[in-house]
């Protein structure tokens, strides 16, 4: 999956987690960038289902 597998909806920022070596503190940096989320997976499945349904419909029609 583009951007790496992850749960959640699409993001408009890429989050970078950094560890400060001196203090041991973790911080986040936000960089502009699109990270696709689960709605793209859902659209993919929907497209697959529509294509499968259409194929089955036309196959039935061809055989009858």
């Amino acid at each position, binding site marked *: 999956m583009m951007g790496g597998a992850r749960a959640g909806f699409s993001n408009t920022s890429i989050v970078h987690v950094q560890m400060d070596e001196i203090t*041991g503190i973790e*911080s986040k940096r936000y960089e502009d960038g699109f*990270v696709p989320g689960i709605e793209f997976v859902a659209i993919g499945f929907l497209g697959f289902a529509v294509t499968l349904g259409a194929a089955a419909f036309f196959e039935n029609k061809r055989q009858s």
Partner: protein
Amino acid sequence: MMKRILGIIAGLSLAVNVLAGSATFDFTDPSGVSNLSFDMTAPVESISGSADGISGSIDFDPAKPEATNGTISVATSSLMVAKGKMRDHIMGSMWMDAKKYPEMKFELSGVSGLKTTGDGVFKGQANGTMTVKGVAKELNTEVTIKHLAGKLGAKLPGKKGDLLVVTGTLIVNRDAFNINVGQKLDKVANDIHIRLNFIGYSEK
């Protein structure tokens, strides 16, 4: 004569100890590492983000860590999440109302039940007040205070002094701070899990 010299030496040494003991740490972090991070898990969506607009000061004495006190502020406008539109909503009047309430504040009055868990590392219950959206609530939460003596130069090359790292976790309800009370609970959880990651600087 000898007694007088010894008296002066003892007095000077006491003054040096007192001066070296207590220090004010500035929590405006020029390295941009200090942050407050938060996580909210609702049935439909999980939200996590952070804020790095930290400022304020804390007085700390390694000989009297229980007397640690001060105020740390977090700029509301520095709150960040990975979704731009969601961030716009957060800044709006229904949620954090950043224009009307530009700061969140942690006022620390002391630390109780302190335990030393390492060299310069203290764990205890931070007592004070947390103010968000103009609502002040008593704050009692577990914190770790790490005094890094002589380590200022590691963060700010050429400077001499100490660092003070204050970390802790707390859970607050958005209802308690008048943050869009009772609304959109399926998407935005009521419980906000907050992690404090603050660094203070004290130059000598």
